[in-house]
């Protein structure tokens, strides 16, 4: 076994994507109390990958979340998968932060931690921006290995250099991307199959350390972030208009012919 790896996994609490999600009427921010909150699904794959790397190389896995006070329930849930500890960045002034400012806060928090690799999900199911990992790499001035469907970390060579290699999932196949550590890696759900925690893991998670960071701890001015510091503003939110009611028929010997008739009526054939 080579040098151990210090791993930080970014975990976001998001409204359950299966349930109805609500934006506040007042300021159009996500109403995190109106819907059930869960760990962003893609982040579970990042945790799983971090645990796999820890198993292979030794080291530590810490979780990092920026979110409201109640995000701690998701942090405890995520800890059940087997990470060692967690850091929770929470401050009333952070509510309504845009992606640009979120990345600033997360980068500052990462600056207070020891790590060789930061793992993220490739996207969050609420914002679905797919930008935080790249923004973090930009701010931290480290390599980005984004969109991984496979990740390997080579043990340190004679110069002490460790190299990460990913298969980056692309629209037409994949690219092999390589970079020296430290690096930010983001993963898709094709990378592994997250395990279910055992009873022992669930019990152990209750006593794992979760430390809290406030904006003041990070030296960030409250006026610069949150709703009032956001780089963009939401001006309206409307539910998707329902599609007009369609025609539904029962299959029979002529269903195919009727389908072709429909296509012809819409000039699709």
């Amino acid at each position, binding site marked *: 076994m080579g040098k151990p790896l210090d791993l930080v996994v970014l975990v976001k609490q998001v409204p359950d994507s299966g349930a109805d999600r609500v934006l506040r009427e007042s300021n159009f921010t996500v109403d995190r109390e109106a819907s059930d909150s869960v760990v962003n699904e893609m982040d579970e794959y990042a945790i799983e990958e971090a645990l796999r790397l820890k198993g292979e190389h030794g080291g530590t896995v810490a979780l990092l979340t920026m979110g409201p006070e109640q995000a701690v329930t998701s942090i405890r849930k995520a800890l059940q998968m087997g990470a060692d500890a967690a850091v929770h960045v929470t401050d009333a002034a952070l509510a309504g932060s845009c992606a640009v400012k979120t990345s600033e806060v997360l980068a500052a928090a990462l600056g207070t931690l020891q790590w060789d690799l930061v793992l993220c999900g490739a996207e969050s199911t609420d914002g679905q921006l*797919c930008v935080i990992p790249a923004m973090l790499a930009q701010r931290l001035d480290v390599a*980005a290995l984004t969109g991984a469907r496979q990740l390997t970390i080579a043990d340190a060579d004679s110069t002490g250099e460790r190299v990460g290699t990913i298969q980056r999932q692309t629209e037409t196949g994949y690219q092999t991307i390589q970079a020296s550590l430290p690096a930010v890696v983001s993963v898709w759900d094709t990378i592994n199959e997250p395990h279910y925690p055992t009873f022992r893991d669930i019990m152990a998670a209750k006593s794992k350390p979760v430390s809290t960071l406030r904006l003041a701890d990070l030296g960030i001015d409250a006026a610069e972030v949150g709703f009032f510091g956001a780089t*963009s503003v939401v001006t309206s939110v409307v539910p998707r208009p329902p599609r007009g009611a369609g025609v539904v028929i029962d299959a029979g010997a002529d269903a195919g012919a009727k389908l072709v008739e429909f296509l012809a009526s819409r000039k699709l054939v």
Partner: protein
Amino acid sequence: MSSDNVATEVLVLAEHTDGTLSKTTAELITAARILGEPAVVLLVSGSSGEASGGSSDATVDALCAQLGELGVAHVVLARSPEFGLYLVTPVVQALAQLVRERKPAAVLLTASADGKEVAGRLAVLTGSGLLTDVTELHGDGTATQEIFAGSAIVASRIITGTPIYAIRRNAITSQLAVPVQPEVHTVEVLLSASARASRILDSVVEPKGNRPELTEASVVVAGGRGVGRAEDFQLLEQLADQLGGAVGASRAATDGGLYPHQFQVGQTGKSVSPQLYIACGISGAIQHRAGMQTAKNIVVINSDSTSPIFDIADFGIVGDLHEVLPQTITALRERAGS
């Protein structure tokens, strides 16, 4: 360089492969005209006069000619062998330099995986706001996006820096313009060491057959768990070929090994917006709908009439796809024959 630059210049990052502009580039140019005068940034690998290992002068000429056809009067050309060697960062540095030099009113790029990363980094570097997966753009800079897997439509405005918009493919209909002879401004791009952090060792195109690209196809025939067996996807492929379309799949189908993952449609797969989407044996989970509900016409074949996918169907058939698809294939063949 910036002397001929009007205040309402909008930088558009062109997307191109093998000397051909992507269809999305034309959409971006149309969107840029809503905000100002498009100046298209053409980043090509290789240096001038180089024939192998990079783009030849003929390739650059061909791309400029295509931009001229789209009515683009200003092309900003930068060549560097490094654009193709490192992930995303060389493009970011080039654009950041151009934003500094040309002070555009906005920057538009494609909301692809690469495009969104470029947008995010550019926002950090230039101290700007960004909006990704934009589906509509208005003259006052307001952009619409879909959130929560497409169940709500949000309008937002960027209030900081040079607004950066990553525009979703197929969302904006490209408009014809009067062809012009573009003026090509060649720029020297200076890349720092951090542009070389992530090396691209190889790019592998996995075989997709000769069907159209899923995200650009005007017809998509998609299958879910209800297809049952990998072999039965042949039925969908046959129908897709008759209609000149692409084949897609739900996550249950790709996870279950019925069809390759690259064809997954939905929140964590591809977003498609075709003229016609035929969903076969797909229940219509919100994460699947997120990737296809903007299709102009939706046809559903599903044996369970209570499946939520019927809620968004223009034409639905309650029945076994293994019977309905062969009937449809025959009916289409007969129609073509008559």
